[in-house]
């Protein structure tokens, strides 16, 4: 039995690569690395639902946005210190994930997706229209210094720490009995049910974990920016997260991570070359689905298999 242990060498190598990128990028480049890290966490949280739980959410950005607003509202409306606000974000996201999740897990497949879409759009609309409380479309700004007023590089290092911790925790979850159960439900909820466990409860558990982690990412994103806007809960971020998971690779723990790095880089650098950057991303997405449906991770594995099966001269 190959107990999926964490290979600390890989973790260390990854962290070193990120630290090197932060150092080389300087103050101006560090926010890009931070964004990549936060998107990696955001996409990985969706990946828990999609690759493991078999649930495709069209409203995952709601929890990212709620994480951001949890922080922004706690500080600006309730006068809490930023540290406490950072706890409020994931908490708010987790709570709403519990509420929305309770409803959504009653449905499956495309109906589930459509209900998450509705929940996500309701969240967005409330954030967008409730001026007196959420500031509407002009959001909440100036409630804290962006990145706590830290040097961008130091903030990126802090985020690296939090994101690595969250991903390790997620790794722990998916390789623990709970992770097996979540995958079982993703594969066949009827079988789980006939075996004696309520699949909806399992789905709800996964939904809340994913929502909370998305909330962590959203809170830190708001901290990076020093603001919160309804966009953070909008359809744009939801589609981003779906695209990242697919680009990175479904059915792989690293899918969210790879996808975030690839997508954020594409989105950052393609517009420098062509105005029609969406066209380029669209074509890449199409090619990935057609030629490597399991994304970057799947492609890697395929190459790996080919290397192993071919005798070396």
């Amino acid at each position: 039995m190959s107990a999926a242990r964490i290979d600390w060498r890989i973790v260390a190598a990854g962290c070193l690569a990120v630290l090197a990128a932060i150092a080389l990028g300087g103050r101006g480049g560090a926010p890009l690395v931070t964004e990549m890290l936060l998107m990696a966490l955001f996409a990985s949280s969706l990946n828990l639902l999609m690759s493991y739980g078999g649930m495709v959410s069209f409203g995952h950005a709601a929890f990212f946005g709620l994480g951001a607003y949890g922080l922004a509202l706690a500080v600006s409306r309730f006068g809490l210190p930023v540290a406490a606000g950072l706890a409020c974000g994931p908490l708010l996201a987790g709570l709403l994930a519990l509420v929305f999740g309770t409803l959504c897990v009653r449905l499956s497949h495309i109906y589930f997706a459509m209900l998450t879409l509705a929940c996500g759009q309701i969240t967005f609309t409330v954030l967008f229209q409730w001026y007196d409380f959420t500031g509407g479309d002009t959001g909440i700004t100036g409630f804290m210094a962006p990145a706590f007023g830290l040097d961008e590089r130091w903030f990126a290092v802090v985020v690296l720490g939090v994101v690595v911790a969250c991903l390790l925790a997620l790794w722990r979850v998916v390789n623990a009995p709970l992770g097996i159960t979540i995958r079982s439900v993703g594969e066949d909820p009827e079988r789980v049910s006939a075996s004696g466990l309520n699949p909806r409860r399992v789905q709800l558990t996964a939904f809340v974990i994913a929502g909370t982690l998305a909330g962590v990412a959203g809170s830190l994103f708001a901290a990076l920016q020093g603001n919160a806007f309804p966009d953070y809960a909008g359809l744009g971020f939801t589609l981003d997260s779906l695209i990242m998971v697919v680009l990175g690779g479904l059915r792989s723990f690293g899918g969210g991570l790879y996808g975030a790095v690839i997508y954020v880089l594409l989105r950052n650098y393609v517009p420098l070359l062509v105005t029609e950057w969406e066209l380029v991303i669209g074509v890449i997405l199409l090619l990935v689905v057609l030629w490597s449906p399991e994304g970057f991770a799947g492609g890697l594995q395929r190459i790996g298999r080919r290397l192993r099966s071919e005798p070396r001269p």
Partner: protein
Amino acid sequence: MVDKRFELSRTLARAALAAVGLAMVAAVAAGPARAADPIRIGLVAGISGACGPLVDGEVKAVELGVDQLNAKGGLLGRPIELIKRDSKTKPDEGAKLARELVLNDKVDVLTGTCSSAVMLAVSAVSKELKTPFYSTIGNSQKANIEAFQPYFWQTQAHALMEAAAAAEFVAGHADWKRVVPMGFDYEWGHTSVDTFVAHLKQLRPDMEIADPLFPKIGESNMTSYITAALAQKPDVVYAAVFGGGLINLIKQGKSFGFFQRASLVTLMTVDTMQALAKDMPAKGVSGYARAPFFELMGNPKAKAFVEAYRERYGVYPDDWATSSYDGLMYLAAAIEAAGGTDADKLMAAVTSITVHGLRGDALKVRDFDHLMNAPVYVGDVTTDSPYGFPIMKNVVRIDADKTMPSKEQVEKLRAAAQ
């Protein structure tokens, strides 16, 4: 305990991580430092996303202006370098790009934002990094009032001023007795409607003002709002809407016979008139505008700009283009007055100079809210036009002193926001 598909072969994972790391390193290391000689302007524009249709003219005009300045030897003997970025009309993206532009590309000034959210997000970066930032499209008053910061200035009439100008215009029509206000359902729309109503109540206490209507921003089907407005039997509808949503309102309104029964007063920019062309109603539409080129042709500077713009792009500049060009020229004057691009010296110059621009010969930015005394042009839309698309006639230039909030008002609003 892990299914093969989930199990990452370690070498592969390492290879992947190395690749990812390399990619990140390569990515963020891109853009080597350049000589400090040129004056760099960072243009963060919503080239894609919701602002796409608006910023087209802005980008063209700024590129034209920079080329013209460089052709004359730049500013203070230094060439100007324009660095253009696509904010995708997303506040987070705008803020990130602004930060990158300041820290990596060493830009001296930021500009280009269109949506209020992106403008406020970039303004926060400008404040933090002490980099001057001016807006020529986005005109939420929040940036001048509640979220004011010393490195920002606004070269437009902001939302409060435009709404006040619209109220002046409506009040001036003695035969209009009943008005229905309407605005897009977001901050700008609500602020505009509130300001319009407050102003109008003062100017014309006799006027009946119906409950306002708030269609969602960019609403594609305005018919329910049109019928609801017409049911009030208004003489005039004030609509704080623009762009695509405004085109919907006008075309659909036309189908309802709206313009035979009421007048519309709205933000009427050149691009909207170009888009509507022969579909513009012959009467019944009045507008307030920011920089209608046809009204500025008497000013030789404006005429020269319009001709240069036409020569280069084959079209007439819209308001966004004209005011962005004007904003750029104001910046140029300020840099020359400051003798450089030092942020604090530049800001001191911004609030002390008087510039002969496209929109008048005494443009200046006042010191307590960094708001330009930009005029608002009001008039009636006519299809009788030499340009091949409608323009406005009977245009009145409403000067800023009639519309700018007083220092006391600004301070009151700032205190209320605390």
